[in-house]
């Protein structure tokens, strides 16, 4: 399964903001649910997510149990140079995930 689905426009004009979307595959287990035997299911959510555009952090988010599974973020970045949009995230279990998209600046 893909870790995430990132959407950026195919080409962006220099100096203008462009929309970035990411949906990350993650169960975002809240920690409030119990299983069929009544045992508590431990919390496991993505706790932090950040995105670097050509190495510079453009968004940094702290998520918690209020965010639904397969979290979806949408934000805007100002186009400077062509290059990678590199996402990284870490969840409560310590598992690190990452995915990258390319930005082409016209």
């Amino acid at each position, binding site marked *: 399964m*893909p870790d995430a*689905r990132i959407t950026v426009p195919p080409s962006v004009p220099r100096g203008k903001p462009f929309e970035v979307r990411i949906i990350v595959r993650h169960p975002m287990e809240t920690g409030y649910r119990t299983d069929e035997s009544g045992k508590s299911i431990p919390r496991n959510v993505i706790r932090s997510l950040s995105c670097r555009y050509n190495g510079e952090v453009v968004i940094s988010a702290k998520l918690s149990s209020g965010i639904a599974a*397969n979290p*979806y973020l949408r934000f805007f970045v100002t186009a400077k140079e062509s290059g990678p949009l590199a996402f990284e995230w870490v969840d409560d279990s310590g598992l690190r995930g990452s995915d990258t998209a390319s930005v082409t600046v016209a």
Partner: protein
Amino acid sequence: MLAVGLERSLPLGALKSGVTFAGADVREMQADDLSNPGFLWVESGEKLWNTPTGAANKSCASCHGDARASMRGVAAQYPKHDATANAVQDLDARINACRVRKQEATPLARESDDLLSLAAWVAFQSRGLPLRVAIEGPARAAFDRGEAFYKARHGQMNLACAQCHDQNWGKRLLSEGLSQGHGNAFPAYRLEWQKLGSLQRRIRACLFGIRAEMPPPGAPELTDVELYLAWRAQGLPLEAPGVRR
């Protein structure tokens, strides 16, 4: 194929997809491919389609080529009677049959991410196309059983599918709006499940809701009902991957 003599409780012109009963936020999520979480499975399905597997070391693409061409219109005909299996199969069963017979691989478990992904990828190739299943000939027995199941009362609440979905659609039941009960958006990302699931899972959930015995996933009774539902929804466009609450 004409279904001579069969009465439709919902005339074809009066069919409404479940998406019309969903809230605006759900409709928006389904309409936007970029935020529709079902696409995580569609993407995964595309990868699996092209990945060789099994003792035969074949991928789906080895025989079927590009799914965008070969699978167009296929999901809209399911469930379908298969001559080799001599049974009506839903899409999940047909995919597994191919895995076992052609790829010489083990069948994938129902509701497993891999099977859901493959079904999502195949169903996606029929998105927008009208449902049209064959119920005559070898499929007729399954269709009749499905219709009987749909109209029979089940469970502790002693309710028939028809009572909610034929007679009371559009009304509210404990703050939930009743849809017409079509399966044209499946496999669908259900917000309650927080993942993609099959129509069989949804049917089982309904049976759970009326406190009836739930046949196990893959049971022939569920395929029978799926066939009846597909006939009942004839002409509605496939919406896979759908989003539902």
